[in-house]
């Protein structure tokens, strides 16, 4: 029996940042038959898969259509120790997986910054951790996956079988098919505990130098910078303490919705940044459980609410080495406009992979959190142009405001991706608010119109 696609019951579905939302019919299918029925009965507004809903913007929204949750399949298979792999359902979260695998001495090579991210969402965005130079993105460690596509039904994809389809689905934002299951490659884990060292630096230039060095020498490296460019570099290595048993999950703090721009109000941000730097000087070394390193914001699930009624947007971009001036300008321009980021996180990226829409490429990564104030629009639009000119790009899954033409310039593989996408989903059943806004899938129509007018 398939689920009843009851279009009368639409609910408001938003992004993690609370700045985007739209109405859609939400379904949570359990079986393959349920999924097949949903694909068959999707109307003209189509459908999109939704995992943990940890995208900042509108990637997992679909106004007027279906939003189909993958959370019903959270199964975790047995680890194959010889191959160092595990087969999981797309709805299992990375947080659950990291906890589940640890006692056996295994872990995921790539872990994003929120425990609620599902395996499906991690593949669909080709997410990265704080160790991109070492381990690349999540997609690199997918041995094989089963994907439900509108054109061919369930098909297996791997870097060797259906390779083009595989790489179009990695980073494909749910627009090539629904990832149902994946076999992931694992790495051995020596301890549930990590030793971290925090180092304060007063200038952006120094932060970058030290972060780059840390990315070469430690397993994980990340830096937090304040709007003036001063920052703290955190490097982490596995602790010698060999315990593998997961500790209890950290307490979550309840947060109110703050008035106005909330924590992004400049005097508040400045005070918080000063306090953070002082803490580093007082106590630079820590022994932390793994989740504290991977998922620092998990203790503050209400972080978006702290940005006021309009919510939070994140502007996350990468620029090649040598384009450090764009990083400085991002901080300077937003500060000059009176919209300093409430949080700014720097990372180092290594080599890119073959996925046309994958975000990481060699260089710097800077993620900026802002209260979603309309006045930011022109400031970030201008910044996007600088990023594109420098050969950089913004992270699609986190976007909520970029212009379609700038995206096309940032992702030269877009045309190649569209070609594969249209074979997997010729009737364009798979669509999201983000895909509509950035016109990711529409090129065929746009080309036809262009041609007929030429």
């Amino acid at each position, binding site marked *: 029996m398939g689920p009843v696609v009851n279009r009368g019951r*639409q609910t408001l579905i938003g*992004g993690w*940042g609370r*700045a*985007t939302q*739209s*109405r*859609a019919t939400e379904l949570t299918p359990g079986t393959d038959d349920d999924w097949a029925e949903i694909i068959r009965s999707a109307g*003209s*507004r189509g459908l999109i898969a939704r995992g943990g809903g940890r995208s900042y*913007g*509108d990637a997992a929204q679909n*106004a*007027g*259509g279906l939003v189909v949750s993958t959370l019903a399949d959270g199964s975790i298979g047995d680890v194959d120790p010889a191959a160092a792999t595990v087969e999981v359902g797309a709805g299992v979260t990375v947080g659950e997986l990291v906890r589940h695998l640890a006692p056996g001495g295994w872990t995921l090579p790539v872990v994003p910054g929120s425990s609620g991210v599902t395996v499906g969402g991690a593949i669909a965005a080709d997410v990265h951790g704080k160790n991109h130079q070492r381990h690349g993105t999540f997609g690199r460690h997918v041995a094989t996956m089963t994907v439900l596509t509108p054109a061919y039904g369930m098909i297996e994809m791997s870097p060797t079988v259906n390779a083009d389809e595989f790489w179009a689905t990695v980073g494909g934002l749910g627009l090539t098919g629904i990832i149902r299951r994946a076999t992931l490659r694992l790495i051995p884990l020596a301890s549930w505990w990590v030793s971290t060292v925090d180092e304060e630096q007063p200038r952006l230039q120094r932060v970058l130098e030290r972060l780059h060095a840390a990315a070469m020498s430690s397993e994980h490296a990340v830096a937090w910078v304040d709007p003036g460019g001063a920052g703290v570099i955190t490097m982490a290595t596995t602790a010698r303490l060999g315990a593998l048993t997961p500790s209890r999950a950290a307490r979550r703090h309840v947060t109110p919705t703050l008035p106005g721009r909330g924590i992004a109000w400049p005097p508040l941000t400045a005070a918080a940044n000063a306090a953070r730097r002082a803490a580093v000087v007082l106590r630079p070394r820590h022994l932390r459980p793994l989740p504290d390193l991977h998922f620092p914001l998990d203790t503050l699930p209400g972080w978006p609410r702290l940005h006021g009624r*309009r*919510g939070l*947007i994140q502007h996350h971009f990468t620029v090649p080495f040598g384009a450090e001036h764009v990083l400085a300008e991002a901080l300077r321009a937003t500060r000059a406009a009176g919209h300093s980021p409430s949080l700014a996180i720097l990372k180092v990226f290594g080599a890119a992979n073959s996925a046309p829409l994958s975000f990481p490429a060699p260089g710097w990564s800077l993620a900026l959190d802002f209260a*979603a*104030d*309309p006045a*930011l*629009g*022109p400031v970030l*639009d201008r910044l996007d142009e600088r990023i594109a000119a420098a050969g950089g790009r913004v992270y699609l899954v986190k976007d*909520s*405001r970029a*212009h379609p*033409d700038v995206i096309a310039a940032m992702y030269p593989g877009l045309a190649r991706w569209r070609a594969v996408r249209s074979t997997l989903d010729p009737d364009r059943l798979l669509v999201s*608010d*983000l895909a*509509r*806004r950035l*016109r990711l899938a*529409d090129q065929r*129509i746009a080309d036809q*119109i262009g041609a007929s007018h030429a």
Partner: protein
Amino acid sequence: MRDGLGRPQTVLLLGGTSQIGQAIADQLLPDGGTLILAGRDPAALAAAAERLARPRRHVATLHYDALAPAAATVDLLAVAAARHGDLDVVVLSVGVLADEAALADTAAVEQAMHTNLFGPMLAVHATAARLRAQGHGTLVVLSSVAAVRTRDGLLSYGVAKAALDVYARRIGESLRGSGARVLVVRPGHVRTRMTAGLPEPPFATNVSDVAARVRRAVAGRPGVTYVPAVLRPVMTALRLLPAAVYRRLDPAQRKGATP
């Protein structure tokens, strides 16, 4: 789609040559997007498209005539969406202002009512259906303070606006829960070609004032907005006055000074 900063991406203007409509569209798409001008005069539309184009703002034109059969309006919306994606905001800014005295023959009344009421009503209906299916979008309907207090000198115009105003608000209520909505705009006297040469009553405004207010209202929730805002209490008070007193208070009203 509207973005995370509340900025619409695609705006369709029905009455593509309307001065009020163009000012609204201009303010709704300050940083880029697609503007579709729909109207009946190709040369005027092309000139407006050139004037309103910006580095990141594409301006397209389509044919629209409020006197055409309903199917043409339905098709127009379908073509606009097929070419340019979801319609985030549709601005309905069609109208003619005719002094009642000039509507001497009955056919002229028919023509005026078709332009000011019947055509716009069909446009409201067709647009609401499309926005409902989209699951998002705002329809902005240019009503008038004349909808609240009808003047003898602009009787047909006032009656048309009053009916359109009621219709648009009710359709707006029926959209509740669909993600789509209707915003009814009631300007007083706005300085445009429509009012050129008419005596200026108090509270006259410019198109930029209307546009700024509509931009704010589109970002927020109201179903009805007055321009300027002070007209809300003023019109409420006027509406409560008996007709005889109203006539005596307002010597200009027979001349039809406020559309």
